[in-house]
């Protein structure tokens, strides 16, 4: 029920401003973007899809920031592991 999938907006349907075609890993689907009427998504932008509607835009900057944080933690962890191994070798 809380199933939400990210998809990329390809195009709007010509006669229907509420409908857009999105792409999810090569699968194309028409969804309703009426819930984003205050700030409609443009082709190339990503949205969260739930039961045939776009609920929210995906903020790519925030996604990148989230990943960066995770990379940072990952790097720190890897560094610690290396330090641990080095100290074991001695």
């Amino acid at each position, binding site marked *: 029920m809380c*199933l939400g999938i990210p998809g990329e907006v390809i195009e709007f349907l010509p006669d229907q401003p509420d409908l857009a075609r999105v792409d999810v*890993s090569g*699968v194309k*689907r028409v969804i309703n973007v009426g819930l984003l009427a205050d700030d409609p998504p443009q082709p190339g932008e990503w949205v969260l899809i739930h039961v045939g509607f776009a609920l929210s835009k995906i903020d790519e900057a925030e996604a990148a920031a989230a990943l960066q944080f995770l990379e940072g933690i990952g790097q720190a962890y890897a560094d610690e592991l290396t330090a641990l191994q080095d100290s074991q070798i001695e």
Partner: protein
Amino acid sequence: MTGRAGPDAGPEAGRPAATWVDEALREHAEHAGPAAARPGAAPPEREQQVLDRIDRARRRRPRVREERITMSHGSGGKATRTLVEAVFLEAFRNPLLEPLEDAAQLHLNGSRVALTTDSYVVSPLFFPGGDIGDLAVNGTVNDLAVAGATPLYLSAGFILEEGFPVADLTRIVASMKAAAEVAGIQVVTGDTKVVQRGKADGCYINTAGIGVMEHEMSLGVANAQPGDAVIVSGPIGDHGVTIMLARGELDIEADITSDTAPLNGLIADLLSATTGVRALRDATRGGVATILNEVATAAGVGVTVNEDAIPVADVVRGASELLGIDPMYVACEGRLVAVVAGEEAGTALAALRAHPLGEQAAIIGQITDEPPGIVLLKTAFGGTRIVDLLVGDPLPRIC
């Protein structure tokens, strides 16, 4: 209407609850109760007791609880298995039927012969990559091939709906002819029935197939042993997703075609490359997950697979995520799952990959001692979980 409370009224006394619940409880009375959890025991111990109790419950004699057949009974999952065991096996029981493999293995005048039957009710009849005719020939050929038999002859019975276009029938039959040629089999007998408009959804096909075993090997899922490797011949879920999209109800488009194909050539190559093959199955309704469970149950072993190692086309992944279904349960029509002795895994893999239908073959896991009867998945994320049979099928009328 009397007793009309409605959701907006305040709290009131309720009516008596469902009686089917009491029945279910009575049946399990000997399993519930004190044996379940000793209050003083530590949580992991208590949990294990509950798991053991559940295990015992799962091994009980199957019984069909429903009064009517539902779509789940045709899904290839738990409901189908229960129906087969409780109704068909109960009635027909004999040693040849009991293995419940895809084909029965018979001895006729000194020859080892495999016999199988299948029915095809796919909707829509025509889809990207094939049609019901292709499925009918390839599916039957595959059931024989995975028994280790060389497929020889098919029967084809047609149930046609009044009003079905003859042109469509001709098209289907042409597909069957082409598929038969590729597979190297002949259709030697058949039947035709017509039912009134509104039944048979255009065309249903029933087949039977016969093949001979030209070697001494005895394949069967009960042969799986700890240390064996589990191999899949290519990306999973293509057929099921193709059908789902071809139904046109979902407004989904994707570049995907059914993987329907005859596997007898691939299997012949595999069996001549190594004698270490314990079991072969073609992954149809219920998908790879169902086969893995059949192996685990029949051989009383554990099956552990690596999510990362299972080949899935991007498009199938995308569609599955979108629909909230798991590719492991989605039907294929031209993929096999092989259980191969551990030391022969490399040879088997190479043999599969050398064949066009096995180019993306992959070792996806192995057979273990523990936990018996259970399929474990090591997720791409690094955690573990179980892969159980589904009750029903996310995608009905798949083949």
